[in-house]
């Protein structure tokens, strides 16, 4: 049950409303229109109302792409619902288009009969030209299957703030709040949270606060008074498990997960990083949290970032480096050294479209091969992947647990979709969070021999810290003798060490949970997925299961090594389908490891899977199973 707002609602509608289970709304406009802010506010307000929410921001790589053009369109999609949801939705119930370019590039995602609200004032010859249109798309019949509502947003916003005499330029910058107010009216959202946001965000500019408030309320009032809308909609709170919730974006959840791991293992966090889309927000978040003893180091390049993290790890810090695909390539040699040094380190790769610079702001899962194999020599390390924005919090802690228990760098894969997407995160109680026990060898008196590459039962070596009397030792990239750590070029020793490092990482499998199966213990088709496709795959499989189809689902968090029961699960189903946002990287691993003739469903469009396309693919595959 919701305890959503503090104080009375700012506005209450007197019109009729229709109850819905959920709705998918996308706002789209120019990248300078404040679309991301609009979307974030709508999401937070919906979450506060108690809806389950899932978001998908989609924006161009350019900071200010040419105004009014199709390339400059920025979008933000949110699904809010009164039941559990895992994706931001395939098709739109409502599209808000702030200009012609936004309309024509987004309208095809609208459901038949869906609602499209346009800023009528932006539909003029100049804007048509910028959008590469030779006519008005509102009048060519292309919108015949939709309900189109034209709102002169520019004029109405200017009028709403007119008495403040701020000038047209500033008035127009309030337009996103007008659109927001209208959407809030349409879906029965309360204005309070956004009014609070306006006051805290623009607090030092009282005139801007006033203008945005006026625009927001004017948008709401427009919905209430115009004849264009006969009714509005309601989406009740979802029945989420009891607890306190926060709407969290993936990168923020990841940052908090790293912090929680540091705090609960008694370590100070050191982040060595270099700015790169879409990973930079982890740096932005952590650098705000200096009072936790977090040291963030913005290095001169990706290589220095990982090497500084290695230096910090040697000194005893919880060391992390964050990046995306191209940056991970640059870090390869450093990560290889960390494998050789056997120091704990977390390498976060928030994947984006590749190769090379690729699609910086779009999502993809094509760095799995790089994560597992992308280094010189036999260079194994554990690889984990986050499944959703909130899951980033848990996976970050698990990565640290493995890193210190096995004295190894750990690769944590996220992706642009979950990094920028958000969902409700149940605020954990501290006592429920895992605690990682870390011990460092004690000083020894002169004469006693310290063995820096001695092994415990997990094959992990001791983490001896500089400053400890008697434990002076040297580590390096050269091959070394086991136990003593002395440089060794002996051929048998090298083979033994290569095997030992491989065995150590393989042992991680005995320290992680067995893989869970969503579905019957055996059946016709097993869907195997990993990373950010969790939501879409889960929704698609459950939909098929609800129709009585024989489908199971395995979503992998651990990609190297795999959980011990994966082979068994794969063999329990007649067919294995591996949907991935790449050309079949997990499928290749599964085929090579378990000799399973898995079928791929692959997409590399810089976009997440739609539930519908997965359902169709599952059904098509099932039709061919004997």
């Amino acid at each position, binding site marked *: *049950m919701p305890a959503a707002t503090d104080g009375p609602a700012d506005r209450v509608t007197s019109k009729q409303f229709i109850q819905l289970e959920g709705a998918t709304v996308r706002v789209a406009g120019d990248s300078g229109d404040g679309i991301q802010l609009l979307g974030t506010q709508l999401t937070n307000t919906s*979450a506060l109302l108690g809806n389950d929410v899932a978001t998908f921001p989609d924006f161009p790589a350019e900071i200010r792409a040419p105004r009014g053009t199709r390339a400059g369109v920025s979008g933000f999609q949110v699904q809010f619902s009164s039941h559990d949801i895992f994706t931001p939705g395939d098709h739109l119930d409502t599209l808000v288009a702030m200009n012609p370019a936004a309309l024509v590039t987004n309208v095809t995602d609208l459901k038949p009969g869906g609602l499209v609200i346009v800023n009528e004032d932006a539909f003029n010859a100049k804007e048509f030209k910028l959008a590469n249109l030779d006519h008005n798309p509102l009048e060519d019949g292309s919108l015949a299957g939709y309900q189109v509502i034209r709102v002169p947003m520019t004029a109405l916003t200017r009028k709403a703030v007119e008495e403040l005499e701020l000038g047209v330029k500033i008035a127009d910058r309030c337009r996103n709040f007008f659109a927001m107010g209208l959407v809030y009216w349409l879906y029965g959202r309360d204005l309070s949270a956004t009014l609070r946001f306006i006051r805290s965000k623009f607090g030092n500019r009282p005139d801007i606060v006033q203008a945005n408030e006026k625009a927001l309320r004017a948008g709401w009032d427009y919905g209430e008074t115009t004849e264009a809308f006969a009714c509005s909609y309601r989406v009740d709170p979802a029945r989420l498990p009891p607890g306190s919730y926060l709407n969290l974006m993936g990168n923020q959840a990841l940052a908090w997960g790293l912090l929680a791991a540091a705090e609960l293992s008694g370590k100070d966090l050191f982040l060595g990083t270099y700015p790169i889309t879409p990973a930079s927000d982890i740096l932005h978040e952590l650098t705000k949290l200096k009072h936790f*003893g977090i040291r963030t180091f913005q290095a*001169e390049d990706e290589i220095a970032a990982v090497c*500084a993290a290695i230096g910090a790890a040697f000194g005893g810090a919880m060391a992390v480096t964050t990046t995306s695909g191209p940056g991970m390539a640059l870090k390869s040699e450093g990560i290889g050294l960390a494998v050789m040094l056997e120091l704990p380190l977390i390498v976060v790769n928030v994947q984006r479209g590749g190769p090379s610079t690729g699609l910086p702001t779009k999502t993809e899962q094509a760095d799995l091969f790089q994560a597992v194999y992308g280094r010189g020599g036999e260079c194994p390390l554990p690889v984990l992947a986050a499944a959703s924005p909130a899951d980033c919090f848990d996976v970050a802690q698990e990565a640290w647990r493995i890193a210190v228990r096995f004295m190894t760098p750990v690769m944590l894969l996220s992706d642009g979709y979950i990094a920028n997407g958000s969902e409700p995160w149940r605020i954990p109680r501290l006592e429920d969070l895992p605690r990682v026990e870390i011990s460092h060898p004690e000083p020894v008196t002169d004469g006693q021999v310290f063995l820096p590459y001695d092994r415990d039962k997990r094959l992990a070596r001791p983490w001896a810290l500089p400053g400890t009397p008697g434990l002076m030792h*040297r580590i390096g990239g050269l091959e070394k003798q086991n136990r003593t750590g002395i440089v060794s070029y002996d051929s048998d020793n090298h083979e033994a060490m290569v095997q030992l490092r491989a065995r150590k990482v393989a042992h991680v499998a005995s320290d992680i949970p067995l893989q869970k199966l969503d579905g019957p213990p055996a059946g016709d088709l097993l869907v195997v997925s990993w990373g950010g496709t969790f939501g879409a795959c889960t929704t698609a499989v459950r939909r098929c299961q609800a129709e009585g189809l024989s489908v199971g689902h395995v979503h992998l968090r651990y990609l190297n090594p795999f959980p011990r029961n994966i082979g068994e699960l794969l063999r329990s189903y007649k067919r294995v389908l591996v949907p991935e946002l790449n050309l079949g990287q997990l499928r290749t691993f599964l085929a090579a490891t378990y000799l399973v003739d898995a079928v791929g469903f692959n997409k590399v469009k810089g976009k997440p899977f739609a539930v519908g396309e997965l359902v169709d693919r599952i059904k098509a595959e099932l039709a061919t199973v004997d």
Partner: protein
Amino acid sequence: MSGALPVLKPADYASNQDVRWCPGCGNYSILAQMKKVLAALQVPREKLVFISGIGCSSRFPYYMQAYGIHGIHGRAPAFATGLKATRPDLQVWVITGDGDGLSIGGNHLMHCIRRNIDVNIILFNNRIYGLTKGQYSPTSRLGAVTKSSPAGSIDNPLHPLSIAIGCEATFVARSIDTNIKHFGEVLQRAADHRGTSFIEVYQNCVVFNDGAFDYATDRDHKADTTLELEHGKPLIFGKNRDKGIRLRGLDPEIVELGAGVSERDLLCHDEQAPEPSLAYLLSRMRYPEFPEPIGVFRTVDRPRYEVELNNQIEAARAKKGRGNLEALFQTGDSWTVS
């Protein structure tokens, strides 16, 4: 107290590893001086960390009874930065060479110096790639005939001290491997300096570039080919100390003392000059046109990275209190489902 602390001797700083540089390599005397200076300063061994990259010089950490990382090519300053930023209590030395520090690792060297993180960088300059067996390096002279430049190097060489000064280094010095006393003094001053210390040491590679610094080490000529810098003293050199450096406009010139030229006309060394122009001018003086200065070119105070970083943490704590996870999780708009 139950008696005095044991006194560390130079040999106590030696690890149990056999030193494997070529016989006659200049590195031996650098290693010996390092151990002597550390013993003179009585630095606890557990507080010492030597970090290197790749190359002959980079084997140095293995030979010291201290903590050490033999890292990857060119990245030693980056490891050192991460370590010193989190462990300001340690004394960190970076050992690098002309290839490691100025070629593949030029970027890290530059940024380490400009951040003024409190590490001591020793760049062993032998003007050749030794470990890869004799290719020209970024400090090889124009025309240097090497395995990879049989027709002579056409790469204009870099001058390590000019680069360090260009990066606003707060301590810049030069010495020579065989000039044991001088090198020992420079090392000690580098160890004492707070902030990045950068030392270029001329180091003879007996195998691939033997004699590269004979002009500066030869007993008969070194008084004329080098100039020992002393703070507050005029720039005088020569076997008979009868030559000096005078400024003509913005350029240095060599003058003979006497015959109307007195010490007062000479350029006076000021290692603490706030502006680095003088140090830069000195770094540009090269044999055979000029004697090459050795000693401390520049030593000034500037905020250190690791101090500032930790100050920011203290400031944040003073303002917000120590971080508390539960409080953090409650920031922003949360809601409760019962």
